[in-house]
């Protein structure tokens, strides 16, 4: 079931391209939206939240246009990266006031406020003025606001920013729980480890373009033909290095004390040849470790592709 769909969506800010030709369907579960600052993550989220209209293409939430259909925005829990509120208000008053916009009566707004503040761990600080709240508390307050409509789609823009380790742990658990409950949760970040904690399903975006989508291993498979690095532990690195250098799939080697690092040009051909070479006991191969299976390396490859 598709909760959110982007159909060939592009967005310009004057002459600056924010997002280019994004075509994406998003269903239930947690999805990490990964990219460096300025990649287009927030723009994608803002279009889904109905804040921006695409220059080209269309965005649909539950089949409706979130920009023009106010009612569909009741199903969207948007936690923006912006950190400005009505500073003079108390946390609970602000959440209650916001709840009224989601159709709650005065009494209902009070109840839902209690509920969402408890969920994000802000019950004790509910009487604090927003101007007195720490960055982490403000982040939790925004998350509480995002949960007001009991939405099916959560758009969380950098939700872990400013949180202490305990706060991060709480919010990561909360995000996972929301995903388990069948909600569609999109979490953006430029920090790879943050996203990895919440999901292994990723969308990589760079300079407004969708670079890849899938689990981290699926994405790695998509770049099979990209150069890779391997660490091979062996007894006679120089001898093994000579043999490896003779392979056309090897770009270079770095000899180390108890092994060597290999720069591979063509992974498929290299692994075939390596199987034979490593089987020869003369080299004393005791370990083969890929050095670039991490998300960082994958992202680096995709960005430089």
């Amino acid at each position, binding site marked *: 079931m598709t909760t959110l769909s982007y159909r060939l969506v592009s*967005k310009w*800010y004057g002459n*600056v391209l*924010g997002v280019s030709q994004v075509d994406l369907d998003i269903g239930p579960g947690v999805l990490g939206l990964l*990219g*460096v*600052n*300025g*990649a*287009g*993550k*927030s*723009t994608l989220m*803002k279009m889904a*939240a*109905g*804040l*921006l*209209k695409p220059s080209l293409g269309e965005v649909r939430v539950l089949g409706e246009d979130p920009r023009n259909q*106010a*009612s*569909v*925005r*009741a199903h*969207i829990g*948007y936690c*923006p*990266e*912006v950190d*400005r*509120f*009505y500073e*003079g208000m108390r946390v609970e008053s602000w959440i209650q*006031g*916001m709840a*009224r*916009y*989601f*159709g709650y009566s005065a009494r209902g707004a009070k109840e839902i406020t209690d509920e969402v503040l408890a969920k994000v761990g802000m019950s004790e600080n509910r009487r604090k003025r927003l101007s007195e709240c720490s960055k982490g508390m403000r982040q939790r307050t925004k998350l509480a*606001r995002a949960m007001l*409509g009991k939405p099916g789609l959560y758009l969380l*823009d*950098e939700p872990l920013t400013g949180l202490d380790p305990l706060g991060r742990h709480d919010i990561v658990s909360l995000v996972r729980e929301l995903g388990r409950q069948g909600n569609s949760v999109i979490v953006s970040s430029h920090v790879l480890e943050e996203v990895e904690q919440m999901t292994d399903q990723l969308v990589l975006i760079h300079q407004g373009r969708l670079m890849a989508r899938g689990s981290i291993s699926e994405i790695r498979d998509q770049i099979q033909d990209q150069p890779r690095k391997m660490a091979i532990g062996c007894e006679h690195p120089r001898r093994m290095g000579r043999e490896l250098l003779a392979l056309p799939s090897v770009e270079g080697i770095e000899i180390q004390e108890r092994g060597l690092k290999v720069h591979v040009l063509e992974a498929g051909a290299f692994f075939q040849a390596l199987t034979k070479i490593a089987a020869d006991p003369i080299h004393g191969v005791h370990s083969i470790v890929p050095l670039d299976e991490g998300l960082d390396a994958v992202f680096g490859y995709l960005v430089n592709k």
Partner: protein
Amino acid sequence: MTGFVRTTWLVALQSLRILLGSKKSLFFFGLSLLYAGVMALVVFRFGDREGVNELFSMLTLIIMVQALMPLTAMYLSISAIRDEISERSIVFLLSAPVPRPAIWLGKYLAATVSSLVIIGVGFFLAAILSWNLQGDLRFGAQLQASTVSSFGIGLLVAPFAYCAIGSFFALSFKRAMIWGAVFVFAWESFAGSTPAQSGVRSATVVDAIRSIAIKGSVAATGFRREMADWITGGRLWMDGMSPEAVIDKMVPSIPHSIWNVLLTALIYLGLALLIGSRKDYESGEQNG
């Protein structure tokens, strides 16, 4: 429709609380009270010689109608919308299930009510003080209800137009405050004071408010004589016309002036809502 009215009401209430609790409102409250103080002082000092109705009319025209009301309404209406857009806290409202026109209409209503409250307090305080002073000290003619009500009607309808124009600026331009200042000081003050023959004056809000005041304040004969002279560009005595004849002939009726002000409000509000529904107010360029 019920949802639209409900959300407009909610936005208006919240914005009203924020506006009336802000320091800028306090500043305009201060100016409004200052007007009342100046009025009391002038009436106390010169009331016996000039007449209470004349002083009340002239001071209210100069301070309230031509300066404080347009400034207050323009500032508050722009501030109600533009502050949130520039701080980007508007995203919380824009991403809520609230139709965009309801957001802007709610903020317009909040600014209008705030302006009415701020100006209204000073105006009625000035009226009460003037009435009491002339009563106690037996100054000439009493302050008449017609004088107070004619200015009261003018000041009651003026914020609807000024706030609509302010909302239009706020939703159309990044530097809305500059546009607002240019509008008040250049258009309303300058164009609003051009000779009647040019026709430009009748396109200003201040002229309609002034017309209501001139037409209605029948007891302030000295004030009406001055206004008639001003309307004719100083030719009143040369042409041998009476002030009453000039006012009858050249000043539009009160309902006509009220209609002009409300029509201006409707046009600008319509434009503001149209632009506000179509334009993006979240650039999205800051964090990609």
